[in-house]
């Protein structure tokens, strides 16, 4: 009998973004693209592009670490009404 195995990287099917009750709001004018938020994000939900930090809300669980580590305070957390 062959038991089907989990394929590499398939966890990205889990859209963990539905867990959050607050989410980061990035002020792109303030963002200096240092990458602190992206490296510290436990989910790996942040990307640094030419325009600044970009959050993938499919995965963001709303922990708020990005807002805490941002050296220029470009990230604020806003509550989500459910």
């Amino acid at each position, binding site marked *: 009998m062959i038991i*089907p195995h*989990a*394929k*590499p*990287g*398939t*966890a*990205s*099917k*889990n*859209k*963990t973004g539905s*867990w*959050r009750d607050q989410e980061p709001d990035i002020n792109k004018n303030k963002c200096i*693209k*240092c*990458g602190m938020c*992206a*490296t*510290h*994000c*436990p*989910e*790996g*939900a*942040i*990307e*640094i*592009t*030419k325009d600044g930090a970009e959050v*993938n809300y*499919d*995965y963001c*669980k*709303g*922990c*708020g*670490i990005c*807002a*805490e*580590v941002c050296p220029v305070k470009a990230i604020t*957390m806003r509550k989500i009404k459910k």
Partner: protein
Amino acid sequence: MEFKREDDLFVSGHTACAGCGAAIIIRTVMRALGKDTIIVNATSCSEIFSSCYPTSAWKVPYIHVTFENAAAVATGIAKALEAKGNDHTTVVVIAGDGATYDIGFGIMSGVMERNENVLYICYDNEAYMNTGIQRSGATPYKAWTTTSQVGTVRQGKQEWKKNLTEIARAHNIPYIATSTAGHLIDLTKKVEKAKKIKGFRLINVLSPCVAGWKYPPNLTVKLAQLAVDTGLWKMYEVENGKETINMQPKFTPVEEYFKPQKRFKHLTKEDIEDIQNKVNDYWKNGKGEIYG
């Protein structure tokens, strides 16, 4: 600096709690290690949240093993690679403090003594968080857990934390280091250095835990940094017997580290003073006790 999600070898969609320190550590470690890696994961939170069947957050070969035998399985893989003439793949154990300080310690000690070619990364969240916050050998003095309750006779754990890093050092392995989830450049450098060394290497990483330490999830990184700043967690590495302290403490009062954590909310002024004195003593006279 550009930072792409697709470069991650540990992908989004794992089911760790919001603000998980272990997830930060594993992402950083995987970025530093690269694709040529085999992961041996002892039973722990990281196993549960990364390999929730039928999905996997890993993009590298991965095996889940029991609490006890992660170091032994890694040894087998390292030996098999050696027999095949492969001298480039890194065999890495990722385990929590339960598997490292307590249950898997006997086997790990044997593997250290034989100096097998394994890189062992312990993320230390200071209790058995996955099974419901039971105390472990890594739980610090006076901390609340479900098996070190706060009552009228005893308040929290009565023993000091086991000093695993120093025990490992006594095995004369080529590389031992400590780091935290709040010092990712330091952690990356240490993993990159350890990757190039042959023999048994241990990196012990402090990993704040939202569920078990009971603090707001945005403080994970800050608490890890405070542990070093207060002098409770010693940030150092030992390379072939030579010790280097990578970061001197700023001697921030230990109270600032304890305050946001509800597992320490029962601490009295005397308790905090007692711990502060022990920390001061450690850094001044090499006596006393610290957590790292």
